[in-house]
């Protein structure tokens, strides 16, 4: 079994780019399998330095085969990639499959709070929602609807969150000023939790006072807030 072909089969099946070092590890692991045959065992003896010429030859093979993909080495890791001219189609493929599911109710609520109160910290969101927002924040961030926009002028300088341009696109809004008026939500006083263990009560309320001016006009705050 020629080394180059084994490497090809590996790179063809890999979910991520692989370095020569990682490829060698796979060869070694394959040889360690209980039922490993002689050919599998023999390739485990190959040195990392010997892999690179084989990989380069493989890349040349695919270059001359001139199909719709190539083997490339980026930052020391090898991977198969489609040729850029097929981008329009491949992008459509991703679009078809990546159609995101509807946002869950907790996600929508959290998003609403962020939209109307941005920028604000995770602790503030949790205070308004009354529950933890860990998973939800991750979803919203992954979906590109909210992002970190700065840090609060408070103890620990926690990150503050705001909505993204994607959020506007998602809901068909021209800007944050287009959000339907929901004064009530803007008005909910966000108090600090009843018994913070580590914070001096007197001081904890001081910082939020400071924050107040920055949270008044949600539409504008995202600009001046980057820290």
């Amino acid at each position, binding site marked *: 079994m020629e080394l180059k072909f084994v490497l090809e089969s590996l790179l063809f*099946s890999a979910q991520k780019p692989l370095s020569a070092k990682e490829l060698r590890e796979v060869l070694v692991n394959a040889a360690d399998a209980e039922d490993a045959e002689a050919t599998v065992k023999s390739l485990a003896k190959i040195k990392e330095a010997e892999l690179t010429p084989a990989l380069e030859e493989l890349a040349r093979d695919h270059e001359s085969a001139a199909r719709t993909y190539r083997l490339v080495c980026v930052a020391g890791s090898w991977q*198969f990639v489609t040729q850029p001219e097929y981008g329009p189609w491949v992008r459509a493929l991703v679009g078809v499959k990546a159609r995101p599911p509807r946002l869950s109710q907790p996600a929508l609520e959290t998003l609403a709070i962020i939209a109307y109160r941005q920028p604000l910290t995770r602790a503030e969101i949790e205070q308004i929602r009354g529950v933890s927002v860990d998973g939800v924040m991750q979803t919203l961030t992954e979906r590109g609807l909210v992002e970190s926009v700065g840090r609060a002028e408070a103890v620990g300088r*926690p990150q503050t969150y705001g909505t993204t341009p994607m959020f506007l696109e*998602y809901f068909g809004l021209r800007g944050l000023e287009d959000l339907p008026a929901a004064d009530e939500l803007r008005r909910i006083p966000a108090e600090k939790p009843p018994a913070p263990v580590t914070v001096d009560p007197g001081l904890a309320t001081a910082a939020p006072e400071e924050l107040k001016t920055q949270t008044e006009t949600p539409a504008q705050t995202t600009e001046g807030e980057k820290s």
Partner: protein
Amino acid sequence: MAEYKVQFEVFEGPLDLLLYLIKKEEVDIYEVNLTKLATQFIEYIDTMRLLDLEIAGEFLVMAATLMYIKSRELLPVEQQAQVEGEEEGEDPRWELIRQLVEYKKFKDAAAQLQALESRQEHVFPRIPGKPDFAEPAAEPVKPDVSIFDLLNAVNSVLKRFEQREGQAREIFEDKWSVSEKIESVLKVIGERGSVKFSDLFENAASRGEVVCTFLALLELIRLKQLVCAQPEAFGDIEISRAVAAEPETVTNEDEKTSNIEHRTSNAEGEDVDGPQSGAELKENAQ
């Protein structure tokens, strides 16, 4: 003896055993001496009995059939013909051979399936990583949530907040105004082209909001901004933008900057990663 035992364990049934016996004779199924085969089969059954193996009913049925075939062979020709006449050409020998031939084909096919099965264990599909431009930002995502969902979410937040805090009665006063609703209805219709009547109210949080939405619709229809259609009797009313009507910008008093003091707290959450420092807080408060 040991060989017998092993073999018996792998026979799927009488046909399997017969095929094994024929294979041992190295003859074609069509050329097999059935009398001899019958004798061998019965010998095997006897061995199974001797070994105290459980003999499935099918083996016994087959043994009986073979005995019958064997006995027919021993009859004089005239009597053979007589038997055949009775059975309308149903020759048990033919029946058995046909069955064996057919079974043999499927046994071979099963072996081929088995080869495919083990081959598949070594075949791996290419599952590439997601292409770089799979990032959501590059993808114009079709809105699958309307602004109403967002408003609904707002209202849930408010409702729960009230339940939790048992306060802020003024929060729950309906703040909806007809002009706000006009704006949002126009926005939704501008966005979607048309909207179902029921959809406009689906997420209304309060009677007040429903009233405001309805008044807004009436106003827009009066202003010939919107038209209503009911494609089928008792069906849902479809609301869409009136043809050639310039969307009138309904300005809405900007009430977004509330007078009520925002009291936001920055109590520690998991974002707080440093130790609390009073000095820092004071400094920030300056």
